[in-house]
Structures are given as C-alpha cells and as structure tokens.
C-alpha cells in the first residue's frame, strides 16, 4: 500500500516577502494541502492573507463561519478574486505571534469546479482585537487543473520573516 501525504515543497522566509509561489505542482497526486504559519508586516493587528491558483483572479466565492474576538458571524461573497485562508497577525499584534491556516483542495486535477475548504486561526492575547477562528467553504469556478498556487499578503505589506508555507500532495491509491 503506497504512502501518501507527501511534502511537495516548502518555504520558510529568511526575510520578508511580497508573495510566495508554488509553481509546477506535479500532477501525480489526488488532493493538495497547503499549511501556513504566517505574520504580516502591515501596521495593523489582524489582516487577511490571499491565495489564488494558476495566476487567475476570477471565479472565487466563499461562505464563512467566523468567531471574531469571541463573536460568531457568517458572511459570503461571490465574484471574488481570491481564496482567503484566514486572518493573520500583523505588525501591531503581539510580537512573534503567527497565525495558522490549512487549505484543502480535493481533486485538483479533475476537470470540474473546485470546492476548497479553509480553516484559519490567530490569537493575540487581547479580548477585543486580533483573535479569529475562520472556517470557510470556497468554490473556484474553473475546470483547469491546478498547476500553481500564489500566496499573497493583503493589498499592501509583506509576509514577515519566519513565515512558513508547506504544500503537501495526497494520493488516494
């Protein structure tokens, strides 16, 4: 029986970066998992990160379930440009705090729209700002196989030193 859940590539930043890209993703797996441990340089406490596939900035939608500083809410968006893996700490957050997220992409090679789950968390040791749990159902309405993945900070700023990005492939046989 084959082993699966194999590391395809990783990147731990030794200096801040405006984006991280995994390109030439092999077509030898069934599903992909992206795991992040991220902090951003923008002068705020908590801010979103973004992910897009195959350099495409269209066809994304999501439905979110969120605890924001202890208050539950849900919201949704269509016609968006990215998948959002969750909020991350930033320059005004507790020092050395990083947010974590997992993105699961099943059947990334199959010619159909791509359902994607994301789960992201960040905790700031403050009761009113910078604490989030976000679970999201995402849909990328694109039938192309995913061959590249770009992870971006918010519209300004960079990922901070020490941020890490791991891409895994899963085989189902």
């Amino acid at each position, binding site marked *: 029986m084959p082993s699966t859940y194999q590391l395809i590539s990783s990147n731990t930043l030794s200096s801040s970066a405006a984006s991280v890209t995994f390109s030439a993703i092999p077509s030898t797996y069934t599903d992909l998992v992206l795991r992040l441990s991220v902090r951003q340089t923008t002068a705020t406490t908590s801010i979103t990160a973004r992910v897009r596939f195959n350099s495409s900035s269209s066809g994304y939608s999501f439905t*979110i379930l969120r605890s924001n500083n202890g208050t539950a809410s849900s919201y*949704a968006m269509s016609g968006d440009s990215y998948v959002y893996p969750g909020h991350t700490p930033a320059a005004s957050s507790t020092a050395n705090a990083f947010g974590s997220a997992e993105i699961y992409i099943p059947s990334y090679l199959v010619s159909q729209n791509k359902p994607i789950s994301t789960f992201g968390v960040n905790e700031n040791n403050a009761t009113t700002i910078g604490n989030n749990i976000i679970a999201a159902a995402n849909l990328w309405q694109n039938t192309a196989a995913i061959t590249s993945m770009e992870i971006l900070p918010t519209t300004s700023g960079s990922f901070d030193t020490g941020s890490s990005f791991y891409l895994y492939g899963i085989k189902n046989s």
Partner: protein
Amino acid sequence: MPTTYEPIATTTVGTATNLISFSSIPATYTDLRLVLALNSAVSQYANFTLNGDSGSNYSYTWMDGSGSAVAAGNGNNDTLIYLSQRTTPSGLNALFTLDLFSYAGSTLKTILTTNNQDNNGSGYVGIQVALWRSTSAINTINLNSGVNIYGIGTTATLYGIKNA
C-alpha cells in the same frame, strides 16, 4: 518515522448512486479520515452509518454558517448522522470530511465532520461532532442518501492514520 496517512480504499462514482460503502476496514490504524468530493446529482441530505447499525445509537452537535447567519443544534438517539444539516443543491461541487478517532478501540466512537458547500457565495460551511455509542471497532462506513445524490465524478477516499 513510520509510514502513516495511507489510502485504504477509494471510489469514483460512474453512475449516480445513493450509497458509497467502505467495508472490511482493517483495524491496523489509529484513526480514519474519509474525504468526500461530492458532485451532487440532486438536492438532498447525505448521511452515514457505521457497521450497518441503524439503531438509535447516534448523537451529534453541530454549528454552521449560511453566509448571513450562524446556527447550531444537536440531536440524540438518532439512527444516522447527517454529513450536513443542509441539503446540497443539485449540481454543486462540495467537500466533506470525516475524522473517526480511535476507531478500532473499545471505547465509544467520536467523529468530527466538516461540510463545505459554497455555491457561488451562498450555501453553508459547518462543523459537527458526533458520537456512536458502540464499543465495536468500526469496520464499515456507509455513505447514504434517500436518493442518488452521489453523482458521476464524486470521489470518496478512506485513509488510515497511524500514531506509531
């Protein structure tokens, strides 16, 4: 480090069906994970049972978001566990996961499920914890529905995870 996270079995649906079954599950792992990438053929609920048990031995607590509201609930002494408390619209690509912890042990069985059913900015995202009140090892998982919800191209894969 030992090999872990191994595929036990996978099914890709060729004709829409109301049942995907994993049987003769080996007891050689610690936990199980089932990943269902659903091409929903019709709008309906999907559910699962364990070891063919249709007795009133299941309970669950869930919460989800609809894009505008948060909801939560629970049920007990039920005869099955829903993969989602919401129907999946016809034609939707959706993702469900089931984590079955300590499935081969003699304690009652705890299951964590997630449902990811975005439909272009509507739909649901949810999480659920369920309990199957049985001390038997799980050897069969049946994904069920009242109609042929598992459409062509649906893929269900069962993975085994070892902790040592």
